[in-house]
């Protein structure tokens, strides 16, 4: 933040600190709810609140039993399994299709680019409840409602816009003469694709895949409608848990998810920096 210049008047100084205080409060508002679930998840009693023992830092007030419950309860373990399976296949599908589409879209000869782009990213714009309702109606007509495949297809559709956007972004700075150079040096189109194009767009593909993964992993509205108990994912289980029996196991799961999202955030940030370095864009 640096030192304030000495010529500032008192009101200007007050404003300087006052404004920072205000921003500090807003950042507090953003982060505090995420932080507060962490100690609460170690609660020894089944409430969402701090007990006297916890505030006195008495070890008896803390317990790992909600984590134990999460790791032993079959409902939760089934949910973890489903979440991973569904997110994995949905990501695979949306990354493959999305990357191909982004490559096609970035060709200078692509007709009606804006229109196609807006069609492809529309699953991101339409409110989830509407997508979920439509998918529920149609998937139950064709027998996909209540199947893993149905949920995977639905999640893949929701994830593709992110892949298309991130891969298109990495292709913006793509130098087409590299392809010609590779061809003139005798590389086949397949070799060019894997040796020249893929390494350059890889950061975009991976961050797109991460977005697709988190979309599926975090998604609950579509699972609620297209899936059933057999397709329960972690968010599904949390949703019904909050509605029915509220137990701090949900907070333990929340804590684990916060840690997972920190890990994902770091990964995406590292990838972004690597991508910028590769394409020679200087950080400003």
């Amino acid at each position: 933040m640096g030192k304030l210049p000495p010529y500032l008047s008192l009101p200007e100084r007050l404003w300087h600190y006052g404004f920072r205080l205000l921003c500090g409060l807003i950042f507090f508002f953003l982060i505090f709810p995420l932080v507060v679930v962490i100690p609460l998840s170690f609660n020894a009693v089944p409430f969402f609140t701090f007990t006297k023992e916890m505030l006195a830092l008495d070890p008896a007030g803390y317990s790992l039993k909600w984590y134990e419950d999460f790791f032993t309860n079959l409902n939760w373990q089934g949910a973890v399994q489903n979440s991973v399976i569904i997110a994995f296949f949905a990501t695979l599908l949306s990354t493959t299709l999305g990357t191909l589409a982004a490559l096609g879209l970035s060709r200078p000869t692509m007709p009606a680019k804006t229109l196609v782009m807006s069609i492809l990213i529309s699953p991101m714009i339409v409110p989830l409840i509407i997508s979920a309702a439509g998918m529920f109606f149609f998937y139950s007509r064709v027998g996909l409602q209540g199947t893993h495949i149905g949920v995977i297809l639905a999640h893949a559709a929701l994830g593709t816009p992110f892949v298309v956007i991130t891969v298109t972004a990495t292709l913006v700075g793509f130098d087409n003469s590299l392809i010609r150079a590779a061809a003139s040096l005798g590389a086949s189109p397949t070799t060019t694709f894997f040796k020249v194009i893929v390494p350059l767009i890889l950061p975009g593909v991976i961050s797109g895949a991460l977005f697709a993964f988190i979309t599926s992993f975090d998604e609950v509205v579509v699972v609620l409608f297209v899936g059933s108990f057999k397709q329960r994912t972690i968010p599904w289980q949390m949703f019904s848990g909050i509605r029915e029996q509220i137990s701090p196991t949900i907070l333990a799961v929340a804590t684990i998810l916060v840690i997972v999202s920190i890990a994902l955030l770091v990964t995406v940030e590292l990838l972004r920096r690597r991508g910028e370095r590769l394409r020679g864009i200087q950080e400003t």
Partner: protein
Amino acid sequence: MLVGPLFLFILFTFFIPIGDMLFRSVENSIVTDILPRSTKLLADWDSTTNELPSEAVFAAMVADIKEGRKARTITRVGQRLNYEAPGMSSLFRSSARKTKRMKEGPYKPALIKAHKRWGKVETWKVIKQFIPKYTAGYFLAAVDAKQELNGDIVRLGDEKRIYIDLFWRTLRLSLIITALTLILGFPIAYLMAILPTKSSNLLLIFVLLPFWTSLLVRTTAWIALLQQQGVINELLVFVGLVGTDNRPQMIHNEFGAIVAMTHILLPFMVLPLFSVMKTIPKSYVRAAVSLGAHPWMAFWKVYFPGTIPGIGAGAILVFILAIGYYITPELVGGTTGTFISNRIAHHISSSLNWGLAAALGVILLGIVVALYLLYDKIVGIDNMKLG
């Protein structure tokens, strides 16, 4: 051609389902499908004469009900007609039992004896209303209106109006949430834009972390904070601001929905604001101040106009997201903080009035598409950025 596979995929998994919803919002074949004979004859019946249909129609109806009873579809007709005229469901259910014994005609007195509503012209008018393959009935219901038997469209009585109020509430709450995210988001985006990159990157993490964290985690966190025995209430009691018996109700109402959704959507406001503010050179304001403008004036006249594209982008994005929100209002909204999406979900999974759910969905979709076109005009979808 590389776009082809994805295009087909999106078409099948996304656009056809949306189309299916559009179709269901006007589709009306259930009555003609299950009562094929009687509706065919009823089409020629002149309902304006106020005379009951002929014996042939009654006979066809008995045959239809018998068959519908065997196929177990007859209750669905009753259910569907019941949306328009209460009592039809029980009419069909009780008649279905009694038609079993009707072996031969004349069917007219027999059916009227089975249930006296068959002797009323109105009953037949209601059924006749369902002969067209498509109906605007669901849409009328979605805006608290209905079509009378004589074809007039009338608004429902005050006590029966729910959807218009719900749409207004959804719009009002979304506007409040958008305004709050702007008020909270503008200062921190501004702070991040004027700080050196190193410190602003650090602060950006505080915005991105909630953005990346599961929606349900954040909703759960607000339940833990706001509930009656929650962290904030305990704190208020501890410092003595409120007594332990009159803790304020902060969740399962409008307030809880607004607070939690403002928190959840705030990153969507900050990120576009920040990316626009980053591009405004700091020297502009300095130049204005050095030319004698008051710092406030310089900010308002020089800096602020430059941020308007960011405000527009963030506001529309937050508004679009808020208007279709389902999970958070469902969990923390109680009865006063519910949105139109909660009603759609209710009609899909509880009341099973899918047509009405579809009609409400189509109206909501229309609003969102209009806003999206506006967004496209202001920002352009090509400029959409993530994180």
